């Protein structure tokens, strides 16, 4: 066994790290925190200019042919830097799906706009009554000549207020089983009848509800077959970002270690010298290491040509659950000062642990809840009978 990364991966990682050190400024991080929008146009366009939105694609399609190991290093470094790169993931996902399932026109006109960093996307999957059961989608698309008329409502369309396109899952057929009556569109956000309403979250992130009223969408914005939307969704769901949460866990622990090393208790002793503090920091360190290993295992399997479906799910489940346990432990060890928010005088670790404690709650919800993850592992990984 060899746990070291190949030289080309380490070289690429070093290049990414240098780039991020220059461009992910304190101002960029503060602005994301203040606005709750974890997308920064300036940074996004610089990342796009490096060709990293499609770094994993083959060169003939405008990518850099980066291996899954290099892609994991890229993603890991981005999140270790604290860069607000929610948009990078969504843009890459939509562009990649269009590359695989889109029309020539979409590949010629929409994909280049996304890859250049000029256009942002958002995902229109979830609905008020279709969360984990995303195929219960009720937003209707009805054909009218060369157009479709869309009516409905989407939840958690994060970045909709910045996006140029929404990747929209719709119901086009009521007479077939629910998975077989779905159709995907990539709809320009400036189409008449789309309304964006902000939703503010516990984590401080802004997301949105988007409403669609008599939205007329030309057929050329349809992605994949009519009633073939589920297959398009599945293409897009291969969306690995385990290293995102690992990076956040590392930042969380770094804040706690730095704070405990500097702080003193009432008797003048360093907080990090308290045995119970040391135990909690050590425990969080182990969780970080395991998260890292599970993420890299999935990346390594992908680099060997195996689809790490169960292993990627395990990495997601473990890392996000660990993230919440660690945030819970680490805000505790700050004592009452852990309650102060970022920007407040006397806030432990400048309030970043408090912010992480709120933010991490969403990580076991989006991208497949922990319950959905466990079901996948039990059925596909362990071969247990389908749960009822």
């Amino acid at each position, binding site marked *: *066994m*060899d*746990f*070291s*990364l*190949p030289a080309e*991966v380490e070289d690429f990682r070093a290049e990414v790290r240098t780039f991020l050190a220059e461009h992910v400024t304190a101002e960029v991080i503060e602005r994301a925190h203040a606005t709750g929008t974890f997308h920064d146009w300036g940074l996004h366009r610089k990342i796009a200019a490096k060709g990293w939105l499609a770094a994993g694609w083959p060169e003939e399609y405008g990518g850099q042919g980066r291996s899954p*190991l290099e892609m994991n290093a890229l993603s890991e470094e981005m999140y270790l830097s604290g860069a607000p790169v929610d948009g990078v993931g969504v843009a890459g996902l939509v562009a990649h799906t269009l590359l695989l399932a889109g029309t020539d026109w979409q590949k010629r006109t929409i994909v280049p706009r996304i890859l250049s960093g000029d256009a942002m996307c958002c995902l229109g999957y979830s609905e008020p009554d279709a969360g984990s059961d995303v195929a219960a989608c009720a937003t209707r698309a009805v054909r009218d000549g060369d157009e479709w008329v869309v009516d409905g409502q989407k939840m958690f369309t994060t970045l909709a207020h910045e996006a140029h396109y929404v990747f929209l899952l719709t119901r086009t057929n009521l007479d077939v089983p629910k998975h077989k009556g779905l159709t995907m569109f990539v709809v320009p956000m400036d189409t008449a009848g789309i309304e964006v309403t902000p939703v503010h979250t516990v984590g401080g992130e802004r997301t949105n509800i988007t409403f669609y009223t008599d939205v007329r969408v030309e057929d050329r914005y349809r992605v994949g077959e009519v009633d073939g939307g589920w297959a398009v969704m599945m293409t897009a769901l291969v969306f690995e970002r385990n290293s995102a949460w690992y990076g956040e866990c590392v930042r969380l622990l770094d804040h706690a*270690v730095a704070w405990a*090393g500097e702080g003193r208790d009432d008797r003048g*002793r*360093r907080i*990090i*010298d308290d*045995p119970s503090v*040391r*135990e909690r*920091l*050590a*425990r969080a*360190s*182990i969780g970080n*290491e*395991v*998260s890292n*290993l*599970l993420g*890299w*295992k999935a990346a*390594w399997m992908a*680099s060997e040509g195996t689809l790490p479906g169960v*292993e990627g799910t*395990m990495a997601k*489940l*473990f890392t996000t*659950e660990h993230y919440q346990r660690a945030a819970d432990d680490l805000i505790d060890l700050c004592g009452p000062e852990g309650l102060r928010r970022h920007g407040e005088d006397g806030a432990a670790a400048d309030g970043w642990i408090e912010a992480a404690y709120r933010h991490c709650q969403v990580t076991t919800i989006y991208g497949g809840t922990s*319950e959905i*993850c*466990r*079901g996948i*592992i*039990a*059925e596909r*990984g*362990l*071969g*247990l*009978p*389908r*749960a*009822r």
Partner: protein
Amino acid sequence: MDLRRTEVQEAVRDGVGRFLAKASSPERVRAAEPLGWDRAVWDGLAAMAVPAMGVSSELGGQGAVLADLAVVAGEAGAHLAPAPVVEAMVAARLLAGHPDVGGEWLGHLVDGTGPVTIALRPPREGRLTLVPGGAVADAVVALDGDELVIVAAATDADRVAPANLASAPLADIDLGQGAWDRRIVLAVGGRANRAMAAALDEWRSLTAAWLVGLARAAFGIGVRYVKDRHQFGVPIGSFQAVQHRLADLATTLDGAELLADKAVWALDQGDEASSLPAMALSFCGETAQHVTSAALHLHGGYGFMEEYDIQLYFRRAKAARLVLGDPRRELRHLADRLFGPVEG
């Protein structure tokens, strides 16, 4: 990056695994209780040159790296082998670091004559307590004050092997009294301390691998049971309450395996300051305990019966880590590695 085992490791796994499947079957493991010792298992492993496998060929070993030894440890854990395999492998490597004075006892392990073990904790008031393998070892390596020593008994007298949770061959040994009067100093001062610290990290890593092997086997028993066992007219493995518990454990088990593998890899790379052995022992110990506990409880009342095999795993999983000390102390040891010592 390559997470595959080498061909040699696959061959070792196959050879040791096949032997132990027969020689260390649940029936044999039960028969070896309460002492936790089966001479035939030791002899068979010795015939495969396991005890001194990690020693250079010039000194009579196979020149195997720790990653190879971890494969043996994993199989020993999976089959609950009633012999102090990990301790003997660690002792052999420790003795190989002092061949001029430790050569005789190294030869003992090369020949497979009988186990030599390692005391994880220094003696207190001349007494070593709960030495793993101590009940059946012909000699024990220990850090006695500033001296790294190997002590041996001429007879089986003067050691107490208490009945214990794991039915493991643990023993209390009074040094320098009665039969334990043969004492050789291997090293003194900084050399002695460094040698013992390195041996303990090898023990942590290989014990982590042993625990992963044990936990994988216990997990397999648990998963098979919930597929077979029917209640309310369906397999109990179809209930989400059962599935989700097993899915979490499958996940931590994968993580534990990776961590144990990375710990031996780090030591094989010569990273003596690595915090990975301590991480691996903590996490693999906790995981093995959770896995065996869940597998036992998923058996319902049957899991509480001695007749079912799962209890054999459950009892041993808890003890392997506890024999070193309170697991929370081990976390503080890890903290020393990660964050430096406590001030003042």
